[in-house]
Structure formats: structure tokens, C-alpha cells
């Protein structure tokens, strides 16, 4: 039984009709009057000194309005370590380094002009893997830090570590110990909508940036700082977010191309648009970084975990963005996926001359769950225990505090594991290794699900503004990027306020009208937005019901007077005046009435009529309404050096299982069945939630089996979908069993947890574990290609 009217009910997304009919306005669809097009001249070398830049040919090209370089514009530093620049001077450190840019009347002219710029280089030796970069005396990617102090090595100065319990004691207490090195590749977020922006200035020097971003307010801060570099201190940036064709983490930082559009707009006095095509998106946008992890885990004779030790090395690329902070999220599963005392986690982020890396959905969690969950199976194999039993034995429990200090409130992991096993027919199928070479495997996940505190505030503001017609406009600082946030918000506002979802109008983000939000990441969008919405809706409802004492009798009397003109009218057999006097008002489904009233139209006041009656009041001054609220979750900013702190208000759990069939002659893996059971707290909208999980599973399978950005000495070799392979519908042609476990979290809006990321986290290890069950071969580096399997089979013989 559903205790709610709208929460938990399958409801079409409000943004769906425009998106499927081509009406949604993406950055690709937007042009402004007088707008110019920008194009960027990228580096021809992975590592080189810039000797000379000749822009004269580009400037002569008809239609070109401006050509800029670092030598004729103010220095604009970007990135949280300030180690990157909008335009590079003196030196390039990666193939995508921006050396010059052009503004022209159309995109073709801009690109042609950019190609006419002549750059002379002095090539330098580069480093293209952490191993190369860490060698004593290796070429330095950055000779100095942002403050100009000399650097001695290529290690990025960020530290995320954790040491708890007594590692040596844990090792001594172990009957079985496994060790392995696992790798994950460089992959691309592969948004359907490529990156782009439009920058324009007003006559007072204020910037408006239409940007494909997930962090409008942090971007505003970054750009206001950049305005300072232009001598425009005190001027403001307004960030306007268009419909986003996917974010997946690409919009978590500001990008050089956005600052370049700003510089070109300032130089020309006209709006400037920069739009990446697919090849540029692949070669010049920040992907998800490659990493390696060495893991050691032990258990006692019963299979209870005794210790876990992990060392991670990440290829940062040439500059620092949020990719360098993935270990902050890795700490969560490293310390808290299954019960384990005695944990050691160390991470090293290394500068190279590869493309610099950024956020992607899951943000370190898939990277580290891959070794942890593969290693659990290795440990179970060594100990002679069923891996499902081992997971149950070490399962997290509600109410526990983990070594990281995570306070586990609700926890559905046990049920997720059990349902996964049941759906796979685990006890029947596991360990069979029959002639068909079929196997089953599973893996679990823990993920932040109540925000992820990585900034001074992890809060979200919201404004609810009704109009005269019974609609409520919602202004929220987070971003709908395709995940279904606006759907969750519409249902939440409707439920909490007592109106219908179709009367909730959620506006895409604009820093000029929306309250502050830290950004849409860490599976926090719906959790934060809906918590803030519930707070604001309560305030709004309380105000409306105060007015009801005056408005309700007045409107009902009027309606009754009209009704009495008809001879057939019968007076209601209900003392509504008494109920109104006692303040027993109810607002539900867009109708104001009093408790116990029969369903007569005369005793019901439509929400819009109520609002108009207050606005255009008969006696005395009327008013309009708006209410805001700010929700700050009860969390702590962790001490990253110690890796301790309850960074999220709640945690999501889940388990996934697969059955595979392996062709031992070709190495091909066929997925026969996929099960995904997730503890989601509470289902807000079943269809958008399942959509999140189906999409995440496809990404998880892509990560597991197909995707990899291939590079040669820093140059991307497969910048497009011809040779960068995502799974197609054909690869997804197997039954998928999605099951949702409702643990009704006390901190969640209506009990809901964040669900954006967990769906792709355990997919790869579940597949690898199933392959091992089928053919006894373990692949430790993603993607698991047929070729790697065949090679491993040959080496085993």
C-alpha cells in the first residue's frame, strides 16, 4: 500500500515531451544576436616549449574578428590547484593544451583561422604513465607550483589516506591472504550532447555564461575570479544552464574553452560561442582517469575479513581537476564495504603528459570496488568458501559505524545480496563449470546517498513561487542533466504541498534566480533538492492554511449562493463553518477543503482560486507568496589526511549479479542474465529510478567490457565512436532484473536515498567473478576483452 498520492507512482518526466520531440534547447540550439563563433588552436606536442606563435595569417582571413593568445590577454588560472591556464604560454604539457583562439563570423571560418596559426616548438621529452613519471630524474611536467616554488617530482600535492586498527595484527590473524594488482582504463563520459558555451558581456562588464555545467554556483565563483583578471573586479557572472544532453561529471569543473569564450567575448564586445564536435569532445575534454590499485585482503578460518590494504596510483594527466580527488570517494568502499577492521589506504596522483582527467559518475567508486570485489572472490576461492556466503558473513549492518567513521543508518545490503543470489539461482548454478562454460558472479556496492561533503557547505537552497493560476514555480540550484531530477522535484513538491505534479514547474538553473547549490554530483541531486523542497513546501503550506481561515468561508459562501439559484440544489449536510472555525483545513491534490467535508464542488476551493483570492483580496491588502528553504545535511567534512569523517547523511547499498557464457575458442563473453538489486531508501518515481539503473548498467558493462580511450605518447588514437566502443542495444540484449529495496531512510525525503551512481559501480567485478566461475580465469585489467580472456586461457595451459 502506498501511503502517498504521487511518491512511488510511475509518472512521465516533465522534460520528456520536449526532449523526445526535439523542442528542448540544448547549447547546440542556442544562438544570440550578433554572436561570433570561437575556435581553439590546440597543441601539436605532448610536451614542448613554445618558441613562437604567428597569428598573422589567421588575422588576415576574412570574417575573423579576434585572435588571442596568452601573450595578448590577461593570465587566467584555472583548477583547484591553479596549475592550469586558459591559454598557455612558454610551455605545452599535453596535446590538448590551448595555445591560441579565434572568434569569427561562423564556425568554419573560426576553425580555418585556428588552423592557420603557426606555432614553433622546442619538443621536450615527456612522461606518459605514472611509472615513467615517478622515475628519479624524469622530466617534470610542472617545474614550479602555482606559487612559483620549484617542484622536485611529478607527484600532485593532494593527499588522501586512511590507517585504522592494527594492520600487522590483522595480517597475523589471517588464515588466508590474497594480493593482486588491478587496473582500470582511461574512459570518456560519452555524453550525447557535446560540450559548449556562450559568453557575453553587458555594457557594464557583467558576464553571462550559458554553460553546460553541473556546478552553476561554483562556476560563478570561478568566473567572478576570472573577471578580476580582466580588471573587472566586483562585476558579476550570471550562469545560465540550458538543457543538458548528459553530464556524467564533465560539468563538475570549469574548462579552458569557457574562459577562452569569455576572453574572446570581452575582446570583441560580442557574444561568443564555442561548441565541441565529437572528435574534440574525445580529444580535448577531460575523461575518467586510468588507475592501478594493489590490494591485499585477509580472512580468518571462518571467512571473516581480518584486514584490507590498498595502494592506488592514478594518472592525473598534465593539470589538476577533480579527478585528482577520486581517492576521497575511494575511501568509502575501501574502509566500509563489508565489515573490516585494520584498514590501510594510500593514494598517489601523478602528473604525466597525458590528457588531464576529471570527474565521471561514480567518482572513484567503480575504480576501487573493482579490486575490492574481485579480491573478495579470490579470497573466498582460496578459503574454500562460497563468495556469496563470505559476503553475507561480512555484511554491513544498520547502526554500525565503519572505520572511516561513516554512520550507517539504514542498510539493505544483506537483502540485496540475498535477492541477487535468489534471482540468479546461485546455489544451483555456482561452481558448476559445465560444458557450456557458464558461470555466475556477484558484487556489492556502498555509495554516498545523502550528499558527499567535499566543500564547506554541502547544502541546497530552493524557492517555491506559486502564481495566480495554481502553478508552483520551483527554482533550484542543481542541474537536470537527463537524470530525472525535475521529475523527482515535481512529485516531491506536489506531495508535500498538496497540489498536482503537472502544476509544478521546475525551471532549469540560472544563478540569477536560483538559490545556491554546491553542484549536481555524488548522487546528491534528488536527495538534496527534495529535502529542501519538503522544507519549503511545509512553510508555504503553513502560510496558505493561515489564509484559509479568511478565504475558505468567503469562497464557499459565494459558491453556495451561486448554487442556490438552481432549484435542484440541496444544502450540504455538513457543518463546514465549524470545521473552518477550528482550522481543520486540508490541501491535497490542488484542492483546499475542510476535514470530513463531502466531495461537493461548493465545499472545495481550487488552489489557483485560493491564490487569487489572497492576491486580489476583497478587504485589506492582499499578497503573493514565495517561500524558500535551505537544507544542509548533518554531515562532516572529512579529515582527508586521516580519511575519517561521516561525509554523507546516508549510504546506499546494492548488489549485482550476472550469469555469463564464455566461448573458450574466441574468448567472447555472452551475458545471459543481469540482476541489479539496490537499496534506494524509497522509490520516488519508479520509471526514472529504473531508467537511472538501466543506464548505469549499460555504462557499467561498457566499463567492464568495451570502453577505453587509447593513447600513444599522449595523443588520443580513437577520438570518436568508430573506434571508441560503447555497448549497443545488441550487446544489451539479455534479461535485466532490477529490484528495488526500500529501507525508508529517516534522513531521506520520504525516505529516499541518492541513486545516481551506485548502478554502475559493481557491474565490472560481478562480470569478472562470473567469468572466473565459468572458466577459472581471472582478468584484472579492464576492459575485459575477448583477446585478454583468450590470452589468459592460453597462459593457463
Amino acid at each position: 500500500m502506498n501511503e502517498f498520492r504521487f511518491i512511488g507512482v510511475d509518472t512521465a518526466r516533465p522534460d520528456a515531451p520536449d526532449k523526445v520531440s526535439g523542442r528542448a534547447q540544448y547549447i547546440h540550439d542556442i544562438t544570440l544576436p550578433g554572436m561570433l563563433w570561437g575556435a581553439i588552436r590546440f597543441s601539436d606536442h605532448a610536451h614542448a616549449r613554445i618558441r613562437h606563435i604567428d597569428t598573422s595569417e589567421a588575422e588576415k582571413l576574412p570574417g575573423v574578428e579576434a585572435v588571442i593568445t596568452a601573450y595578448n590577454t590577461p593570465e587566467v588560472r584555472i583548477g583547484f590547484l591553479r596549475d592550469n591556464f586558459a591559454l598557455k604560454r612558454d610551455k605545452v604539457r599535453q596535446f590538448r593544451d590551448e595555445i591560441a583562439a579565434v572568434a569569427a563570423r561562423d564556425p568554419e571560418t573560426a576553425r580555418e583561422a585556428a588552423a592557420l596559426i603557426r606555432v614553433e616548438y622546442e619538443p621536450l621529452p615527456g612522461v606518459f604513465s605514472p611509472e615513467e613519471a615517478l622515475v628519479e630524474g624524469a622530466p617534470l611536467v610542472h617545474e614550479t607550483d602555482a606559487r612559483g616554488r620549484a617542484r622536485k617530482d611529478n607527484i600532485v600535492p593532494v593527499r588522501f589516506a586512511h590507517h585504522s586498527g592494527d594492520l600487522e595484527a590483522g595480517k597475523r590473524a589471517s588464515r588466508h591472504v590474497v594480493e593482486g594488482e588491478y587496473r582500470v582504463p582511461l574512459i570518456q563520459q560519452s555524453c550525447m550532447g557535446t560540450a559548449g558555451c556562450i559568453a557575453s558581456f553587458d555594457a557594464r562588464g557583467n558576464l553571462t555564461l550559458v554553460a553546460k555545467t553541473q556546478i552553476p554556483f561554483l562556476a560563478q565563483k570561478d568566473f567572478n575570479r576570472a573577471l578580476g583578471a580582466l580588471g573587472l573586479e566586483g562585476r558579476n557572472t550570471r550562469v545560465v544552464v540550458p538543457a543538458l544532453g548528459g553530464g556524467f561529471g564533465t560539468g563538475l569543473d570549469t574548462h579552458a574553452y569557457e574562459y577562452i569564450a569569455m576572453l574572446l567575448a570581452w575582446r570583441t564586445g560580442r557574444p561568443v560561442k564555442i561548441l565541441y564536435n565529437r572528435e574534440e569532445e574525445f580529444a580535448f575534454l577531460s575523461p575518467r582517469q586510468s588507475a592501478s590499485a594493489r590490494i591485499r585482503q585477509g580472512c580468518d578460518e571462518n571467512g571473516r575479513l581480518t584486514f584490507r590494504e590498498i595502494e592506488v596510483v592514478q594518472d592525473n594527466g598534465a593539470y589538476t581537476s577533480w579527478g585528482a580527488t577520486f581517492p576521497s570517494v575511494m575511501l568509502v568502499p575501501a574502509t566500509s564495504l563489508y565489515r573490516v577492521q585494520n584498514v590501510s589506504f594510500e593514494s598517489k596522483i601523478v602528473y604525466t603528459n597525458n590528457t588531464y582527467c576529471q570527474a565521471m559518475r561514480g567518482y572513484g567508486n567503480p575504480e576501487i570496488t573493482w579490486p575490492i570485489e574481485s579480491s573478495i572472490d579470490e579470497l573466498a576461492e582460496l578459503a574454500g568458501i562460497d563468495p556469496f556466503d563470505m559476503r553475507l558473513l561480512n555484511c554491513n549492518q544498520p547502526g554500525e559505524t565503519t572505520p572511516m567513521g561513516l554512520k550507517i543508518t539504514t542498510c539493505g545490503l544483506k537483502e540485496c545480496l540475498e535477492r541477487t543470489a535468489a534471482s540468479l539461482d546461485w546455489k544451483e548454478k555456482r561452481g558448476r563449470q559445465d560444458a557450456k562454460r557458464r558461470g555466475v558472479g556477484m558484487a556489492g556496492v556502498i555509495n554516498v546517498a545523502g550528499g558527499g561533503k567535499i566543500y564547506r557547505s554541502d547544502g541546497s537552497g530552493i524557492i517555491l513561487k506559486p502564481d495566480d493560476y495554481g502553478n508552483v514555480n520551483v527554482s533550484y540550484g542543481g542541474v537536470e542533466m537527463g537524470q530525472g531530477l525535475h521529475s523527482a522535484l515535481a512529485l516531491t513538491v506536489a506531495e508535500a504541498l498538496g497540489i498536482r505534479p503537472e502544476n509544478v514547474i521546475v525551471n532549469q538553473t540560472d544563478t540569477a534566480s536560483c538559490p545556491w547549490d554546491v553542484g549536481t554530483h555524488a548522487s546528491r541531486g534528488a536527495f538534496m533538492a527534495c529535502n529542501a523542497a519538503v522544507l519549503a513546501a511545509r512553510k508555504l503550506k503553513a502560510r496558505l492554511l493561515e489564509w484559509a481561515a479568511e478565504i475558505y468561508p468567503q469562497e464557499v459562501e459565494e459558491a453556495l449562493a451561486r448554487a442556490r439559484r438552481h432549484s435542484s440544489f440541496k444544502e450540504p449536510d455538513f457543518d463546514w463553518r465549524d470545521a473552518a472555525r477550528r482550522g481543520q483545513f486540508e490541501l491535497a491534490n490542488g484542492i483546499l477543503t475542510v476535514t470530513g467535508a463531502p466531495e461537493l464542488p461548493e465545499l472545495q476551493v481550487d488552489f489557483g482560486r485560493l491564490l487569487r483570492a489572497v492576491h486580489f483580496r476583497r478587504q485589506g491588502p492582499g499578497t503573493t507568496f514565495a517561500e524558500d528553504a535551505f537544507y544542509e545535511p548533518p554531515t562532516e567534512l572529512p579529515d582527508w589526511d586521516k580519511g575519517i569523517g561521516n561525509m554523507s547523511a546516508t549510504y546506499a547499498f546494492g548488489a549485482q549479479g550476472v550469469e555469463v557464457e564464455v566461448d573458450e575458442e574466441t574468448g567472447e563473453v555472452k551475458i545471459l542474465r543481469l540482476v541489479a538489486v539496490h537499496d534506494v531508501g524509497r522509490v520516488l518515481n519508479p520509471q526514472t529510478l529504473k531508467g537511472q539503473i538501466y543506464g548505469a548498467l549499460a555504462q557499467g558493462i561498457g566499463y567492464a567490457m568495451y570502453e577505453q580511450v587509447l593513447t600513444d605518447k599522449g595523443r588520443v588514437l580513437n577520438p570518436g565512436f568508430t573506434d571508441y566502443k560503447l555497448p549497443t542495444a545488441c550487446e544489451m540484449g539479455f534479461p535485466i532484473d532490477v529490484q528495488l529495496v526500500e529501507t525508508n531512510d529517516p534522513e531521506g525525503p520520504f525516505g529516499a536515498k541518492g541513486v545516481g551512481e551506485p548502478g554502475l559501480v559493481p557491474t565490472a567485478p560481478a562480470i569478472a567473478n562470473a567469468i572466473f566461475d565459468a572458466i577459472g580465469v581471472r582478468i584484472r585489467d579492464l576492459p575485459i576483452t575477448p583477446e585478454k580472456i583468450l590470452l589468459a586461457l592460453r597462459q593457463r595451459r
Partner: protein
Amino acid sequence: MAYDYHRSGSLAEAFALAARDDSALIAGGTDLLVALRKKKRAAPARLVSIRSLPELTAIEAGPGLLRIGACAPLTEILAQPVVRERLPALAQALAVIGSRQIRNVATLGGNLCNASPGADSAPPLLVYDATVELAGTGGRRELPLSEFFLGPGRTALRPGEIMTAVCVPLPVPSAQSVFQRRSRVAMDLATASLAVNYELQGGVLKSVRLAAGAVAPTPLRLRAAESWLEGRAVNEETLAKAVELARGEIKPIDDLRGSAWYRSELIGVFLSRAFRNRKEGDA
């Protein structure tokens, strides 16, 4: 990127325009337009469309022979019962070229004239002993398909010549043929492919034809393996030797789709399976 687009009204006009340096012939355009967009070939001033010339799009089944116009779209070829019933390896290959939308416009002649080492239509046509009709202002000639491919993107077409048709002799009803291929995901270029056509008479193999794709500079017949198998009974030793010979004939490379080693492995698997899975058939 802008071109003049000329829809050719007659074959004679197409021959004349094909000979000009400033023009490029376009049929389905599924390879050409990608190459132009990626600047993999010089931009012509004019695109000359030949896709609606009836002489080039007709599919005619004669006694013992199927003549397929070079500009017949793949879906129309696949819709022919004779293709599905008598030329199963060709049907299997055409069905995995691109997506349905691509197959609606892509043409058989285009797939062959693009001369990709991995052209999926080539191995089955090679094992069916297909010939191609080439014509131009200088006249018409016919060439075995096995002599048509000269290298990646290079064919025996002379300047101004157009491929007008592909002629496929229909195999005897007792012949068996199959096309196998692997790619990374669906709608991808082949990592390796193999077409096989043979008859089994009195327990021994006859008229064996093997042709591989994506494992050499051109699609190629594996003649040494064919000769070895001719007249032999199918057993594991015979197949092992055939695999060894086939692997000696191919020249695979490492690229983004797979390593030379894996391609060679796949050819061996395809070859073995083509015979192993069918040896109990209608001998």
C-alpha cells in the same frame, strides 16, 4: 563543406563525369561522406550521384547466375529469396554491415569499390567465384572479384571506369556455405571474417573455397588451405593442417580493433567451425 551535387541522368553521362578529376561518384555515400568529413580524401568540386540509374540498380536472377546491379542497396539484395536460399554466406554478411539505416542506402558496388580490407561482402562473393562488370567510355570488361582488390582502398578500376554489376554464379544445391565474423560490438567493422563454400561428396570435400576479411591488405582467397582440403575427409587432423596453412596465408596487423595474434586465432576458429559443425550434414 559544400559540393555541387549532380544526379546523373544516364550511364553515358556518368561515364563522362567519372573521368573528370573534379568529380567524385557517389552511390549510397556511407563511406564517401565520412571520408570527406574526416578529410581522408581530397574534396571534389562535384558529387555525381549514380544511385538512381536503373541499369545500376537492377537485380536479375538468370539460370545459374544472379546479376546484382552495383548500386543496388543492401536491403534490396537481402530481400531477394534467391540470396537467402542459395547464397546464405552473402546474406549473413550483408545483414551485419552497419545498421538498417545504413543498409538502406549502402550499395554492394560501394562496399567493394571502397576496397576496405574488411569489406564484409567480399569474402562471400569470393567463395562464390563472383565476377565484377566494369565499364567506362573505353568499353566494358569483366574481372574475377579475386583480381579486383589491389590494396587498402585500391582496386583494378581504371580512371573513368564504373563498376556496373556483380555476377554471382549460384552454387549447386548440395553446396554449403557460411560467413563468420567478429567485431567489438554490433555495427562495428570486422576484426576478422571468413567465408567458406564447399560440397561434401562421398565423405570428401569438393570445390572448397575459403576467403578471409580484415586479415590482409585486401580480402583474400586462402588457396593453400583450399587445395589441402580438396578431396579430403573432414577430421580434426585435416582441419588442423588447414588452419595452419590458412594462418600462413593471411597477413594480419595490430590495430585498434584487435591484434594480429587474435585475428589469426579467429581465422582458425572460423575455419574449424565452418567444417566441424557441418561435417555430419548431407554427405
